[in-house]
């Protein structure tokens, strides 16, 4: 007994070290899973408000540039508005157009914090549950995809951008329509990879990559980026490097996309999957 106590006294620092490390590492590895409590903390109102003060200041210093961006976007939107289109047909069947129904809804948000040079980068935006921003909504900026909302608190939400090692989205080549997956493997914050496109489909640098619309995060045909180069040395698939349209180093105004049909689509898929699971069990 005396020996054990002496041993403890001798090594108590190392034991304390091991205990604290155990605690820290368990926090680290528990929180590294997708959709974890880690995100809630990132978007916690205290840290969020500190970051939003800072971004207010830096935004003020960049007002000129932001104005330019916004007026450019305004011009694009204005030219897309219906009154700018010349009517080819003179007759109209009805005043209310019942052939379309709004599916995607856009909300503005401002970036209050963003990292670009880590392996797992996050973006914090100043809209949360009170602004109807929820997890799994897409985020775009200037018409380019940025990421997906991971978690929201009352006033803030944390976005997992394309430049996060766990990010994955369904995209396609605009020219051929072939589908692939958009991922990012670290390094340059403007270059992402498109994988899973078979080699028999022609790809050249300069081709445009857009979203596929398969997931409920983004509408179809949102601009992702332009093919920078293609590496064909490996196996059966192209390795495509894409220069992304969104500049992750200087994001300030973003749009959060909510899919009005999302719940319906997800529930339907879930139902079918459950039925199949039940059938196969039988």
């Amino acid at each position, binding site marked *: 007994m005396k020996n054990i106590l002496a041993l403890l006294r001798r090594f108590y*620092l190392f034991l304390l070290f091991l205990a604290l490390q155990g605690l820290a590492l368990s926090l*680290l590895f528990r929180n590294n899973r997708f959709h974890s409590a880690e995100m809630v*903390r990132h978007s916690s109102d205290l840290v969020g408000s500190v970051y939003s003060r800072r971004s207010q200041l830096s935004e003020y210093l960049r007002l000129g540039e932001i104005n330019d961006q916004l007026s450019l976007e305004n011009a694009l939107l204005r030219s897309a508005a219906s009154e700018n289109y010349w009517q080819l047909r003179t007759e109209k069947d009805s005043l209310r157009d019942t052939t379309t129904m709004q599916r995607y809804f856009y909300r503005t948000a401002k970036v209050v914090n963003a990292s670009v040079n880590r392996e797992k980068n996050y973006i914090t935006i100043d809209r949360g549950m009170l602004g109807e921003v929820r997890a799994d909504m897409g985020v775009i900026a200037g018409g380019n995809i940025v990421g997906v909302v991971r978690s929201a608190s009352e006033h803030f939400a944390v976005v997992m951008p394309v430049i996060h090692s766990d990010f994955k989205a369904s995209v396609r080549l605009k020219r051929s329509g072939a589908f692939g997956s958009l991922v990012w493997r*670290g390094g340059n914050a403007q270059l992402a990879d498109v994988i899973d496109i078979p080699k028999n489909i022609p790809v050249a640098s300069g081709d445009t990559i857009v979203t596929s619309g398969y997931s409920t995060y983004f509408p179809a045909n949102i601009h992702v980026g332009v093919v920078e180069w293609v590496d064909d040395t490996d196996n059966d698939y192209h390795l495509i490097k894409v220069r992304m349209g969104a500049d992750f180093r200087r994001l300030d105004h973003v749009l959060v996309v909510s899919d009005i049909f999302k719940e319906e689509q997800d529930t339907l898929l879930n139902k079918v999957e459950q039925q199949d699971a039940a059938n196969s069990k039988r």
Partner: protein
Amino acid sequence: MLQTVSVNIVRVLFLVLLQALVVSRVQLFDGLIFPWVYIFAILMLPFETPKWFVMLVGFMVGLLMDYFSGPIGLHTSACIFLGFLQPIVQKILAPREGYDLTQRPTVQRMGLAWYVTYAGVLTLAHHSWFFVMEVFRFSDFLYQVLHILLSTFATLVLMTIGQYLIYNSKNASL
């Protein structure tokens, strides 16, 4: 005593905010150089601080830093390691007549050579632990090593400049 405690708390808060709001925003060579200057708060603890308490301070400072950046537990883990090594390094570097326990490890008190060795070894240990825990791939081995060494150097330079700026004879109590 009370003054020492409050000065250290203020220093921790100031450095963590400085790190989160300013230093982490500086992007040198695509993130190749990424200094973590907030560890200055741990390095500056007085010599009389009990060894177990240094580690506990490391734990708390790391946790606070984690709330501002990165997944929770990453800085915590690296700072516990730093807090564990700090008394050991101090013991190895102890001058023949021992330390004046009421003092803190500053350039003015201990000399530039002593300070650079002390802070250099501990910063290298902290940064290596941190970057290895964050991401380690053998594919970019050289890049990772370069990343650790350059970041350590940047942190060390910033901390040493900070010492000269803050700790002159006028406000030696800070």
